[in-house]
């Protein structure tokens, strides 16, 4: 932890970064985001196994971008999101300095998109064991069973849009959900409105979701909504061999065509 704090201090002191985004102790034992801009701020930084949230969502905020060069204490999902955001041109390549902390506390500076790509390639599966188990359960269900499962889960949605706000890939200035001319998706949180909202969100994240699970953790009524986007993401991976957050080069499955596509009708 000391190594990380010293590194953050050095970066700020030498002007290599104007802000270091990391984690600090929150209430009830959780870790919350921390924004260090002075040497004193860096004393709050912590790093341990509880630092699970994806901080990449802050990188696209205009108020953060305005502060200048950003360094970010990055776990695996933050790094993946960082790559995907770069691929989608929301971050200039090499604009962010990622700090990867190893188990022994040593800090690796990942200054380029290529360095992050190489680092991410060596990381294990994004999903936790519990989520993997849930995904396998969903995959084993028939379509009808899955439909019943999601119908039941989505009934509880209150459309607070916490999933959207927590998602690092939901960076659009105007969300489709907020378009009202025409109003494609009904606003109220009734069965149809909820289903449409989550279906559209899953489609918008298919091929783009980095499987950080942030949306599921953010849900105040406990819907495991991340399983829906992860399911879409893994379908894309299985069928097209592409994975979001694996590279800073854009390779969007739903928007590109390859001559060796398995479907003959498209050729």
């Amino acid at each position, binding site marked *: 932890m000391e190594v990380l704090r010293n590194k953050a201090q050095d970066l700020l002191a030498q002007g290599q970064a104007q802000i270091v985004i990391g984690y600090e102790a929150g209430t009830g034992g959780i870790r919350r985001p921390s924004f260090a801009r002075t040497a004193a701020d860096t004393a709050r930084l912590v790093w341990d196994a509880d630092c699970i949230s994806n901080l990449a969502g802050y990188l696209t905020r205009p108020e953060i971008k305005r502060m200048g060069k950003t360094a970010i204490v990055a776990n695996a999902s933050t790094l993946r999101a960082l790559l995907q955001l770069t691929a989608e041109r929301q971050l200039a390549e090499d604009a962010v300095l990622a700090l990867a902390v190893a188990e022994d506390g040593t800090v690796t500076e990942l200054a380029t998109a290529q360095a992050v790509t190489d680092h991410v390639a060596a990381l294990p599966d994004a999903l936790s064991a519990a989520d993997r188990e849930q995904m396998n359960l969903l995959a084993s269900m028939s379509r009808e069973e899955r439909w019943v499962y999601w119908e039941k889960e989505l009934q509880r949605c209150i459309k607070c849009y916490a999933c959207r706000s927590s998602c690092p890939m939901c960076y659009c200035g*105007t969300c489709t959900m907020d378009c009202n001319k025409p109003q494609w998706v009904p606003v109220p949180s009734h069965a149809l409105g909820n289903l449409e909202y989550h279906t559209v969100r899953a489609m918008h994240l298919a091929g783009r979701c980095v499987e950080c699970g942030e949306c599921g953790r953010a849900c105040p009524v406990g819907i495991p909504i991340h399983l829906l986007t992860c399911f879409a993401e893994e379908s894309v991976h299985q069928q097209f061999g592409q994975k979001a957050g694996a590279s800073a080069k854009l390779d969007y499955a739903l928007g590109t065509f390859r001559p060796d596509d398995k479907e003959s009708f498209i050729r």
Partner: protein
Amino acid sequence: MSRVGVFVCHCGENIGSTVDCPEVAERCKQMPGVVHAEDYKYLCSNPGQNKIKQAIKDHQLEGVVVAACSPRMHEPTFRRAVTDAGMNAYLCEVANLREHCSWVHEEADSTTEKAVDLVRLQLEKVKRNKPLQPIEVPITKTALVIGGGVAGIQAALDIADSGHKVILVERSPALGGHMAQLSETFPTLDCSQCILTPRMVDVSRHPNITLMTYSEVEHLDGFIGNFKATIRKRARKIDEELCTGCGECLQKCPSKDISDGFNEGLTTRRAIYVPFTQAVPNIPVIDVENCRHYQKKKCDRCVKACPTKAISFNQQDELIHVDVGAIVVATGYKVMSTEKFPEYGYGTYPDVITGLQFERYASASGPTQGVIKRPSDGKEPETVVFIACSGSRDAAKGVKYCSKICCMYTAKHAMLLKHKNHNSKAYVFYMDIRAAGKNYDEFVRRAIEEDGVKYIRGRVSRVYEEDGKLVVKGADTLLGGRPVEIKADLVVLATASLPNDGQSELARKLHVGCDEYGFLAEAHPKLKPVETNTAGIYLAGACQSPRDIPETVAQASAAAAKVAALLSRSHLTREPIVAEVNRRPAPLHSDCTGCFLCESACPYRAIGQEEILDRDGIVIKTIAKINPGLCQGCGTCVATCRTKAIDLHGFSNEQIFAEIMSL
């Protein structure tokens, strides 16, 4: 409130027999926004169009819905009509009551009900239509012809003769294509080379034609009138300016045993070669894969032999960028490989050959100077069996379609055999004789009646060798399937015509469609036979489907006429149905987030970047920008955009939504 007029067409009986057209018009009168509705037998006729024009004036219409046939058919007709009455063309919409309703349903109340719904959809759309102005674009007055066979040659000459520049690109080292390989041509039996080679020379001498042989189209951008093509001019390893075509180098090359493609593998050539004696241009090419200089790094005999120092081992491929206004694709065909028919013994027995190989034997420029011999021992065959439909009309092992030219060339082959060797016997196994064309059936009858060619209706089950003869076993279905066995000296397979190698890759580069077999697709089988679905790109010859020479030449001239008409115009008007990225007040500036997923999704490469600057010229935001000249209005970007920042003029989100919600 809108003032819309609805006009329901009976299309003669086409719509009127299953849809109650007066009822549709009556129901439309009740719809909000409709101030006038009527039905008429033929709205596309002059009196029909006059009814629309009159109603626009009488009722001060602000929009028109014509309920008739497919908009592909008569949308331009009705748009012209409303324009005549002073209305913007894009305030007229067509509800397709024919293809979408009357042709696909029986007469019933529900059919009329569906027709009413289809009109209601267009009514909701037209209420939200905005007047649009056609986009004017300039035209580059040069045509690109891809393929230097008889189709490409004809198209290039016709375009060039009409006064426009032409760039003719041929993949192989010389012009001529398959026609240069042929012996005589049906139904007149005049020599193929004698009628083709003068045209090849015309191409090379024409002041308006730039000939690029041994070259291929690498990449294509742009749109009708304004294409940008990148052509790879492959290195011949010969300086074309210095080479005089004397042929000294050809004699000295030590690499000799290379299969000669022009002679269909019946002879060999050297590593430095001219495909055939009459080749245009008469400039050799070095086959790098077989040249000792490249493979063993030591031979330079051709360099020593060349009196003008034209050999250039270091020559590299060149990428040449050209601007063209129109393109004719004339890439031809290839013949099916015979491996699919092991029962015919091709490859196992040397005396089983393909039709193209027979052409080379029969040709005066061929390996035997026109004497028909067989490959195994060089003897003149006495008995020859021709097997038609080797692969054609055979859904199980070959292709479903008829290759069209085989009936005629098989009759010609049999006739040539009889003419050259009076004692020979010719047998033709056939499924049907398809000889539709001027003097075609007479030609086949001549082969049968005057030259005594034996036609046997039936398939061949097996060919095998016995005592130095090829035994052809088949059945005569006209004699109740009686088995037939012929001991032949030579067997000729009329193999199916297939799309040429690399044709689907070329189609992708050009953004033109292919049919289910891989032949290039025309825009309309009857009314637009030489156009493709990409405006400004036309088809000629066997790249579209199997064709004989007269048809190919006719189609090439047709494509050339289209090109000449296009290039004769000063500018082009394009439909204003294009997509646009929206703009919003600061600080958002646009709903576009600049993720550029649309850029990769756009099939026409129409999406670029636009930087939004503040007063000091500093970039605030980078958003997508659609080039209206390139956009084809397909709407893929609209569907891809998560923020709905892109809208398609004439098919806006608002219009589509209103259409759906009206149901």
